[in-house]
Every structure is written in structure tokens, then in C-alpha cells.
């Protein structure tokens, strides 16, 4: 099963990468960019008997390693099965 994990800097945490990207987009002339946040996209191929089991495993992986809950939010989508 494919699990797509999106990790983004938590709201309220200064995201200098996002800010620099935002500035670059503005200087390229892209108007209307209100904010940019830069995160990570992780694709996992995992063995799991059911979608629920895959979700449970993914949640544990996010909490233990893939995201740091102090500074990052995560969400994921499970595909296949």
C-alpha cells in the first residue's frame, strides 16, 4: 500500500525557507502570494492487511520519526488495497 505523508512546519513557527521562497516568488512578479510554507513529502510503500492497519502504522511512523510534533504538523493519505 502506498502512504503519502505531508509534513509541514507548524503554524506560528517561523519558517525561514517558506519566507525566502515567498520573497523570491514576489520578486519574480507573482502577485497575490499571501504566504508560503515549505515542508516535506514522503512516499512509503508498506505491507499492511487493511487500510486501517496502514493508517495506524503510518500514524506511529509520523509520531516517532517522520515528523517532530514540536514544530511540525503531518497528514497522510493511504492508497491502494
Amino acid at each position, binding site marked *: 500500500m502506498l502512504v503519502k505523508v505531508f509534513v509541514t512546519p507548524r503554524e506560528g513557527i517561523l519558517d525561514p*525557507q517558506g519566507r525566502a521562497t515567498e520573497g523570491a516568488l514576489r520578486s519574480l512578479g507573482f502577485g497575490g502570494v499571501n504566504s508560503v510554507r515549505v515542508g516535506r513529502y514522503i512516499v512509503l510503500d508498506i505491507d499492511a492487511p487493511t487500510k486501517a492497519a496502514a493508517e495506524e502504522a503510518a500514524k506511529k511512523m509520523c509520531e516517532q520519526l517522520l515528523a517532530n510534533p514540536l514544530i511540525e504538523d503531518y497528514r497522510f493519505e493511504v492508497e491502494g488495497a
Partner: protein
Amino acid sequence: MKWGVVSFPGSLDDADALYALREVMGQDATRLWHKDERLMGAQCIILPGGFSYGDYLRCGAIARFSPIMKSIARFAADGGLVIGTCNGFQILCEARLLPGVLVRNRSLSFICDRVIVRVENARTPFTCATRAGDLLRLPIKHGEGRYVAPEDEIRQIEERGQVLLRYVDASGAETDEANPNGSMHAIAGIANERFNVFGLMPHPEHAVEKMLVGGDDGLKLFHSVIESVR
């Protein structure tokens, strides 16, 4: 006294820490391999700087799961002394042995410089050879050194005196320009609640010889530890 310096794949400053301890201070220091679980009787463990596991995912996030980290967590829980410099600080935060986390510098640039830090709490095993208010000149070299933690946690850390070192200017004043990476409350080094685990972004192991550009202010932190176990 006996020291253990951990080498992870990608550690850089393990050799300098060993040199500082053995050659400069005449200490009994052993290199500990990250896959080993034995701490070889060390009374203080050093997690050195570098780029353990290539800084993949987040700095320190993968090193935290090295076999030796389990032994170090137990050692710390029993009151053993642990110091993490730079990447070692990041590992200690990821391992939750210290509060908060270190993220990308405010400037997004890697910084290699000398900074001045003020000793905020001298009643700890890591600072007892200094006095509160002392200024230390130490080198830094990092891309992810901006200390952040939730506001309420920072407040508690401050109240308990867990901030041991703070970035200041040459006069000892806290200014925005003196804060190299944008750390919250200009935090350069913190201890845990029990004051037996210490993490700092500056490199005391690079500042142990007067003849060299870094000066020798780093010795004061190592001497504190030696005094505290005596």
C-alpha cells in the same frame, strides 16, 4: 575522570573532543561506537558535532535511534552526565532528553563564527567552574541552531534556571544582532530539569588552546564537569 565520546556515522568533532580531553586536559577518554551499547564506565558522555546520518530527515532524528542512545537514555535517567554539542545537542532534543528542538537558522545560512555567550546558571555540573554573568568566547558552525520550544515550555525552562548559556554582545547585553541564529530567548545552551544533561550549539572542544584562534574558554565547561565529579 573517565569520558566517553560517541562516534556516529557523519560525526566530525569526535576527534577534536578526544584530543581536547586527552591531550589538552590529560583525561581518560574513550571513543564509543554508535552501534555499541556499552558505555565503558564513562562518567560523562559527549555527543559530538557533525552531520550524523547526513542530517537526513531532521538533524539528529535518525542518530537518536542508534543502539548506544538507549544506553545513554538509561545512563541519563540514572543521573549520569551527558553533553551534546551542536549535532549532539540536536540529537539530545530529538531523543527528548532535552526540551525543545533546533531548526534552520533565521538567516538560512550556515554560520561559522565566534560568539560570546553569558553563563546564566553556574550552579550546575557543566558550569560550576564559572560564575553567573561570565562571558565565554566560543566558536559556532551550524546551519540548524535556532532553538525553539513552545512558549509555556520556554517559560518553565527559564523559571527553573535551565538556560545555562545565552548569546550576548561583547558588553554582555542581549541584543538581536548578538543572536546569531534567531534562537528563542537567545538560548545557546540548556540543561534538563535534573541538570545532568546539557546541550549547546557552541563548540567548547574547539576552544581549548590559547595559541589558537578560538581561545581556551571551552576549558571552563570541561573543568566544571571534572570539578563536579571530584
